[in-house]
């Protein structure tokens, strides 16, 4: 037991790697939230009147809503008036090309391992980097433009493609969907926008990097992905934040709209600052992610690796409206120290012969609480719907908790639903087997955990899979239950 404790100690003493701040002058709104702030944000971003109206309406709805309390997480009440809702890196002129971008910013991204410079072109990833709510630079725009793909920051999309934004924004996640989506709709500052035209297969992975830099700010970004008929796109999202003592709020909205035969693959590696060993500080990650399989035979696949955030509250969901459409959800959620995660998915089967697959792997260590909460709902019309769900939990140490709350609602007799869940610790026999073969305990645990999460990690694009594996090893290497 003492060995275990020692190993656990080590694990818990791992410091957050991305905990540096960048010394960039920022241009911020005053603290607090009211109609004036919203007007301020809207004016700053030079938005059309309809969008301001939309924001104000969202704000009105938000003031009428109550913060939800059903999630299995505990945190002190958030003072929404104590948050800076707009914080942008100050730039004198809009950058025309990469040379014009503040070198400090470039350094930031280099530290993150995502370089906006030419050399990264070799890896073939188009990056849109969002720092403190504002999109800084988007790479590869021209290459993508040739194929008719629009990939830009949300504010740019508002200016250049207002029709598309107006038509699809809020169509998957309505403003009043929940408390945080309403808040986001009122104050969102930037994010990514992506449109893949008919029949186009996006030749490279599209990627967004989010970073909260300034103190006391919240990040409220909004991502909108529209995949037109027969198109395909793989989209990556990564997040980090510096170490701070106070909690910071992140309330994002991601909407995916897939038309007939379209396929969207959305991968997230979430590594927001999780707070320190005593659970002080860290990001509150309250995110609404939803995909709509609008057309027949469309497919949306969510893959997430959740290792950061003090509190994660997120349910990437699929509404399977089109016949033969398919939704997938692959998740690894790791919690350590005093982290809390309440995450899962919703699969709403509406169309005929719709299929969904859920694979969720939870790993809890330290004093953390890790919950899976999911719903599979087969509506009356969904003839021949099929679902398979598996949610496994791994416990390391006797002070953490693992919880599962699956809801299964079936209204059609031809549906076939399977759900299974297990909870256990790493088998002593497995560790013993490795030790016997000269693999030390730390490597053995890393090996076993990676094997445990493999089903999900396999779904990630190469570049992300490597990062995710490193992250897992970093957080959990050596911990024996």
């Amino acid at each position, binding site marked *: 037991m003492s060995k275990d404790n020692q190993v656990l100690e080590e694990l818990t003493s791992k410091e957050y790697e991305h905990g540096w701040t960048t010394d960039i002058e920022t241009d911020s709104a005053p603290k607090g939230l009211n109609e004036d702030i919203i007007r301020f944000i809207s004016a700053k971003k030079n938005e059309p009147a309809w969008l301001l109206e939309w924001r104000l309406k969202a704000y009105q709805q938000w003031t009428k809503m109550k913060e939800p309390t*059903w999630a299995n997480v505990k945190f002190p009440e958030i003072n929404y008036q104590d948050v800076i809702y707009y914080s942008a890196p100050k730039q004198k002129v809009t950058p025309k090309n990469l040379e014009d971008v503040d070198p400090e910013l470039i350094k930031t991204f280099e530290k993150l391992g995502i370089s906006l410079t030419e050399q990264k072109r070799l890896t073939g990833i188009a990056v849109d980097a969002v720092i403190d709510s504002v999109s800084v630079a988007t790479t590869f725009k021209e290459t993508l433009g040739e194929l008719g793909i629009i990939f830009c920051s949300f504010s740019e999309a508002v200016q250049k493609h207002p029709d598309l934004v107006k038509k699809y924004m809020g169509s998957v996640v309505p403003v009043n969907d929940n408390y945080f989506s309403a808040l986001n709709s009122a104050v969102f500052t930037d994010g990514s926008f992506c449109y893949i035209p008919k029949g186009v297969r996006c030749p490279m992975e599209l990627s967004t990097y989010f970073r909260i830099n300034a103190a006391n700010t919240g990040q409220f970004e909004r991502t909108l992905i529209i995949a037109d008929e027969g198109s395909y796109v793989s989209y990556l999202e990564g997040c980090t934040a510096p170490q701070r003592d106070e909690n910071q709020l992140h309330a994002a909205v991601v909407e995916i709209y897939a038309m007939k035969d379209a396929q969207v693959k959305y991968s997230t590696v979430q590594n927001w600052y999780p707070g320190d060993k005593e659970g002080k500080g860290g990001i509150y990650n309250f995110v609404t992610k939803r995909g709509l399989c609008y057309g027949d035979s469309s497919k949306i696949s969510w893959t997430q690796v959740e290792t950061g955030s003090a509190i994660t509250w997120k349910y990437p969901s699929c509404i399977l409206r089109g016949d033969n459409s398919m939704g997938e959800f692959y998740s690894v959620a790791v919690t350590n120290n005093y982290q809390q995660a309440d995450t899962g998915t919703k699969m709403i089967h509406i169309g005929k012969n719709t299929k969904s697959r859920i694979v969720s792997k939870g790993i809890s260590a330290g004093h953390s609480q890790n919950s899976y909460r999911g719903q599979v709902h*087969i509506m*009356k019309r969904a003839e021949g719907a099929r679902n398979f769900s598996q949610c496994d*939990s791994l*416990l*390391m*140490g*006797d*002070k*953490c*908790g*693992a*919880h*599962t*709350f*699956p*809801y*299964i*609602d*079936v*209204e*059609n*007799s*031809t*549906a*076939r*639903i*399977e*759900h*299974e*869940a*297990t*909870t*256990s*610790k790493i088998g002593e026999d497995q560790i013993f087997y490795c030790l016997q073969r000269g693999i030390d305990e730390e490597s053995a645990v890393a090996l076993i955990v990676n094997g445990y999460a493999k089903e999900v990690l396999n779904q990630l694009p190469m570049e992300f899979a490597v990062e995710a594996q490193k992250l897992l090893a970093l957080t959990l290497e050596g911990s024996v*239950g």
Partner: protein
Amino acid sequence: MSATVTDNNTTSELAALLDKQLVATAVDAALRKEAAIAFRTAGLPAAKAEEYRFTPVTRILEKQFTLSQPTPAGQASRINDYTLAGLEADTLVFINGVFSPADSSIQKTTDLTILPLQEALVSHTALVLKHLGQYADTAADAFTAWNTAAWTNGLFVHVPDNKIIERPIILYHLHDTSEGQVVTATRNLIVVGRNAEVTILEKYDSAGASPSFSNQVTEAVVAENAGLNLYSIQHDAGQRHQVGMTRIQQANYSRVNTFTFTLNGKLVRNNLQLVLDGEGIESHMYGLYLLTGDTLADNHTVVDHRKPNSFSNELYKGVMDGNARGVFNGKIYVRPQAQKTNAFQANRNILLSPTATVNTKPQLEIWADDVKCSHGCTSGQLDEEALFYLRARGIDKLSAQAMMLYAFAGEVLTNVKNPVVKEYLDNLISQRLHKNF
């Protein structure tokens, strides 16, 4: 989490009624008064209360019942239609919540005490008050509070240490609604001493066309190394609504088997809670619900592992036809001290008609790391290929279907130990499958 406070008329009407019915001189007056207050505080569950999400009990009480209306006496003669033939047992009959001594037969013995709870409250005051209301939590559930404040009668069983009782005890709860609506609150208390064992069977039936509502609470304490087998057969025709709470407290090395068969009724809500407050405990919970028409059966079970080295296993299976709805929620709690727990749960459902629904929510909450816990649930339909196989051999579709459903139900039935009960259920179920599905 539990019942949300509602400010509806039914709650205040019922709360006033409960207050009025309190008798200051009753032996358990303090308990009842406290419960009446708890009821007023908790209130009947609101329409969206998580624990009653699919089970609109409050609305039914509001719409279909006049709670101030007294419950008629009911006719004793009807009971013969519902008894289990050929079973040597001590029987207690409750008609519309009132104990009917003429229909009951309790063998004289010194081995154990079987009494109507009201009598036991007078003759065994200390023992009853030691346990009554100590397990079923009035604050957590409004119906339990209601029952604790207003129960009329029920069963009291005390099995002394080291007595194995072979002869089962049967309770018949008959609702005779031919003279109007019936609302009852019955209460059982079962105390099983160390190394003792007992089997208790409850059967719910109703006659008459008016609606009826029963609020049933059973508390059981199973001491060290003791055993309890608890059967519940819910076979109400027509308009019976039932909310039941069974709470069993288990000590070290005790064994509990529960069986819940829901074969009929309008609305049945079964709360079954097992508290495993000891080591080396073995608990099995079995359930079978065969639903047709507009029946709604809602099973909410809780297994609470509080100490190390215990085992629990749960198997609930259901078939839904017509407009029936099956609801299942199985919670498994494993507390931080409860290392080396093994807990398993399975819920399997078959939907036969396009308008049938199933809502299931298995739930694991685990705070200990050295455990093996799993749950599984499925929803599906009969295998086309197996049906075809049978039909290709000259078996008509309905018989083939019945045969397959019988096999599906068999997994639960096979665990029933008492041969007479098993045969009775077997007949009942195969008849049902051939006739109704």
